[in-house]
């Protein structure tokens, strides 16, 4: 019985879904699932009978779960799967035991300033070693002609400035690395 653990990107909890193929063309073979395959699916201790009634090369597919018609679209990436279903979209991290926790302490405490969107660096208001106050504007980004000022999350000191005016940066790129805070609350072993 293949069991898959899914963690919604940005969520802390993960869910496990068990799929048990009981009927269908190649029922002994295990995955891959194909159109017209029927199987039992177990989630949170409850089991339902489902059938994959249609699939298409463009990523659209349809499930019947105990008689309910459930159309969906999906896209697979390395260890992620994107699902559109009933007007909502979900990005799941497909994980084994090493479930990654999104928004870890390090980021929350603030060891660095990262780009919240992809774009061009318009202005950098701090030099390496520079001291800043909380809420002081540090970097101005521009994306799709929209200007966004990135301010300091707290008072501190810049250890490294990793961007220059005119740079194109990806979303999530580290722009400024801060000096460790005096209390150093950002130890990796700190429990969440």
């Amino acid at each position, binding site marked *: 019985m293949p069991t898959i653990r899914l963690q919604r990107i940005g969520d802390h909890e993960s869910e496990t879904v068990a799929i048990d193929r009981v009927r269908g063309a190649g029922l002994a073979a295990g995955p891959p699932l194909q159109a017209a395959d029927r199987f039992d699916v177990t989630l949170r201790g409850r089991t339902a009978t489902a059938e994959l009634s249609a*699939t298409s090369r463009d990523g659209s597919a349809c499930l019947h779960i105990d008689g309910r018609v459930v159309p969906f*679209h999906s896209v697979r990436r390395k260890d992620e799967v994107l699902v559109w279903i009933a*007007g909502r979209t979900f990005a799941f991290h497909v994980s084994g035991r090493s479930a990654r926790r999104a928004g870890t302490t390090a980021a929350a405490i603030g060891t660095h300033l990262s780009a919240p969107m992809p774009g061009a660096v318009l202005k950098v208001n701090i030099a390496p070693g520079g001291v800043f106050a909380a809420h002081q504007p540090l970097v101005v980004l521009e994306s799709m002609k929209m200007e966004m000022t990135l301010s300091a999350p707290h008072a501190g000191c810049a250890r490294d400035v990793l961007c220059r005016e005119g740079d194109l940066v990806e979303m999530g790129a580290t722009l400024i690395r801060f000096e460790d805070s005096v209390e150093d609350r950002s130890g990796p072993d700190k429990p969440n």
Partner: protein
Amino acid sequence: MFRKVLIANRGEIAVRVAGTLQQMGIAVVAVYSDPDRGAFHVRNADEAYPLDGKTAAETYLDIGKITAIAKRCGAEAIHPGYGFLSENAQFAQACADAGIVFIGPPADVIRCMGDKVRAKEIMHGAGVPTVPGWSGVSNASAKTIAGEAGRIGYPVLVKAAAGGGGKGMRVVRDVSSLAEAWASAGREAKAAFGDGRVFLEKYIERPRHIEFQVFGDHHGNVVHLFERECSIQRRHQKIIEETPSPALSDALRGRMGEAAVKAARAAGYSNAGTVEFLLSDGGEFYFLEMNTRLQVEHPVTELTTGLDLVRAQLIVADGRPLPFTQDSVRQRGHAIECRIYAEDASRGFLPSTGTIEAWAPPSGPGIRVDAGVARGSEVSVYYDPMLAKLVICDETRTDAIDKTIWALKRFAVLGVTTNVEFLQCVISHPAFRAGDINTAFLEQHDLTTQMSERPHDDALVAACVALLNGQPDAANQPSATHATDGGPWQRAGAWRSG
């Protein structure tokens, strides 16, 4: 009528304009930047020529390149769409100088109305009500600016003189943030419009944004095509528009329509334009600005009047009289437009980039989707993140809302984050349904919390099926494990098996 027209734009508006041109028997010329080589608007044209470059400034804003292509390929007219060069008087003039018809108002009208300060003066002079403010001067001292802001009274709005679309605009609530807002609005305006001048205006709290579609021709006719309510905005940019406005009585609609026609006449207007008003709680309305182009939200007017505004633009540009009169235009039903943006509403509406990997818009009677992308399209950082417009029409506002919710729930997009779920939250909100809306709606109602609900159980099953479907090694990947027991997941869930 013209035989060949160049569209100096990209995205959904280029596709939409191309459709009407082709229906009228006019050949469509597209232009494209390097990232847009395979773009949807190029595929919908009859001819396409490169603009060689990536940024807007070196492509869709390059007057010389665009007019040269028009000359070379024999286009007799240029449709500018919205944004980019659509409200650029220099461009309209360059077209005129090159003997190409600019599909829009004359250059001097664009120049006057594009200068928000002069536009206000003209409207004030014509007896159209305007918002109190200060025109601003270049190199004004911080002290002068603060003095003027104090005279007007906080909160004030710092606005770009050449502005539009919320760019170069800042709300300032006290003097401490005035200088920074003045400087950054100026920088943003300089980057977006090439003109860094800004001015001050009284900020009217929680107004409604009501605009009137106007149309003029070269024979002295000016007609309004009713209002559009555009109060649902984020970052001063509209995301939902509708007509008729739930706020207007027939009497108020009549007065505002008359003011809109008066404004268009005062401006010496021809072709399609929009007169924007702020409507206060108390029912007073003020001229905000005039947009001298086709608006993004023009389809709601089209669906309720039965007119094709682009066709009318072509007729006027060809020198013929307007194909309708004030007495012949009628509105029927209710239309709502939702702008589908590649952005993450739960993270401050940050733009999202990537490849569109699934694209399945809804369809049906009274459902129109104007899209600028298709499956496989790249959404880059270079241009505006609007992907498409979902436009719904039905008999009553309630019917239109129900149909919009249905359509949004069936609008499948994967690959980039979109605001489709967020739009569902807005449209489904009781206050929206009640018509109780204003430009601060999204600040007053926190809608993003509804979006953080945990995944629908069906989504988890679908994700697993997607992983197992046609992926032979899925079970062997480290991501898929074999169950030992049901321990950690045995809490009762909402998933019902029936």
